[in-house]
């Protein structure tokens, strides 16, 4: 005995079911949809779904249906900006993120001969809300793992991963790539004289100037303590030297305001090197080592200067 009554299932299931023909005309509309849209099946049968709901992307839906009819396999319709197929307002007071029900939509072959497909609509609002909260938390965590908490500049770990990609990109596109390694002159004396809190203020002050002085494509990173590294894409050694000199001058002429209305002036020393595939044995760490040696030389020569190797 066949105990399956498709009509009972069709009208009692807790999700939307629409039967569409290949020209997007509605052939069936279940009770779940009737209740949530206030549209009776008898009033909309044989109407084109895209004429009835003008916000549906007709070109896309037609392609999906064609895909189902050609491949005889399900097609899924769950991507931004198609977070819903049928606009159903949400009344819940606990939902804070969405105005309309978020939906997953699966289209499956229904009658190959008559070229009909069945569209299943699932309510995914609660799941979407939880996912978007998780996504935000994940992004916050990712940001935290990439950034130095004091300065909000990139940290050494991020620099290390990203610089390899930048190096590969520069090689592929035959672009120059240069590095500035810099640190604050006599930083220990600043800390010893004014205390660590003022030392931190100096680091933050320098970070802000570094961040606003470079292009979006450059990477500024705090390597630790008072040491910073700037990676400049599509920039040769001579131009990098100009950037370094400008930075040095700007720091020399600026100051950190102290709580007692006094000011604190400080200087920086910088080492510059351009990546050279042969000289550096195709390793950016070697470029870094050369720039670091140049920085050491700048310190030996009396500080507050930029040296290019």
């Amino acid at each position: 005995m066949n105990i399956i009554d498709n009509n009972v299932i069709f009208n009692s299931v807790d999700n939307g079911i629409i039967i569409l023909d290949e020209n997007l005309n509605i052939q069936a509309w279940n009770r779940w949809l009737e209740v949530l849209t206030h549209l009776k099946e008898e009033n909309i049968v044989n109407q084109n779904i895209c004429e009835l709901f003008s916000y549906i992307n007709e070109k896309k839906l037609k392609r999906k249906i064609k895909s189902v009819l050609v491949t005889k396999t399900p097609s899924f319709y769950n991507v931004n900006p198609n977070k819903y197929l049928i606009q159903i307002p949400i009344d819940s007071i606990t939902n804070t993120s969405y105005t309309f029900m978020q939906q997953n939509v699966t289209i499956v072959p229904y009658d190959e001969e008559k070229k009909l497909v069945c569209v299943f609509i699932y309510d995914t609002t609660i799941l979407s809300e939880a996912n978007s909260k998780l996504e935000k938390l994940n992004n916050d965590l990712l940001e935290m793992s990439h950034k130095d908490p004091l300065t909000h500049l990139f940290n050494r770990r991020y620099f290390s991963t990203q610089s390899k990609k930048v190096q590969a990109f520069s090689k592929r596109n035959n672009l120059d790539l240069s590095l500035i390694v810099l640190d604050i002159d006599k930083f220990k004396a600043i800390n010893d004289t004014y205390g660590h809190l003022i030392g931190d203020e100096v680091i933050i002050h320098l970070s802000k100037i570094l961040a606003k002085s470079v292009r979006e494509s450059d990477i500024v990173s705090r390597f630790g303590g008072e040491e910073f590294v700037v990676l400049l894409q599509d920039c040769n050694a001579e131009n990098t030297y100009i950037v370094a000199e400008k930075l040095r001058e700007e720091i020399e002429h600026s100051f950190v305001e102290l709580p007692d209305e006094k000011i604190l002036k400080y200087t920086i020393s910088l080492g510059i090197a351009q990546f050279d595939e042969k000289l550096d044995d195709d390793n950016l760490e070697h470029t870094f080592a050369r720039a670091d040696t140049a920085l050491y030389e700048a310190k030996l020569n009396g500080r507050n200067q930029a040296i290019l190797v």
Partner: protein
Amino acid sequence: MTTPVFLNEDEKDCLQELMNVSYGEATAAIASIIDRYATLTIPKINTISLSELKEHLNNKLLQNDSLYIASQIIHGNISGENLFVIDDKSSYNLTKEFGLDEDEIDEDEIDEVVLEITNIISSVTSGNLASMIDANITFSSPHLNKINTITQFEDRFDKQYENIIIISTELNFEDEHIKGELIILTKNKSSLFLKNSLVNFIEDVEA
């Protein structure tokens, strides 16, 4: 530790032949859906380990700023996960082939098209393969990730698959060449089923 189930040369040849037929059907389907003439190069098959897959993707990332990786879970006798990997440029070209004008193309449209092509290639090829070797399978909806670093891949695809089959092919339209790879990830139980089915298939053909 379990021993990976490897395919021998005959079984790999047989799978390549079956995949060639299945890919042919997928290409015909794509061409019909978007009304464009398309051809597909003969798929090349490689079986590798998970660490080799990471190395393979890392090498691709060094040549491309980012990769789209669409994944689709397969349930049934040959359960596992299919990944479709496509680079930035190919995904953009593919979106153009789907009839979108340059000013209509944005991230959402590219995502949509990559998911759609994944669904077609993954379900048609795996579906065909399953029917040829008498397996029963169903698919979950595909999900898309765009990765810039191999760490992002490791974070998002943490399942330990023992056997990985890479099927590389190139989809050629009249104006565009689109490089994509279908990667079939399976655990030993499913791999053993696939291996045995291929052995039976070879025996049936030779009988």
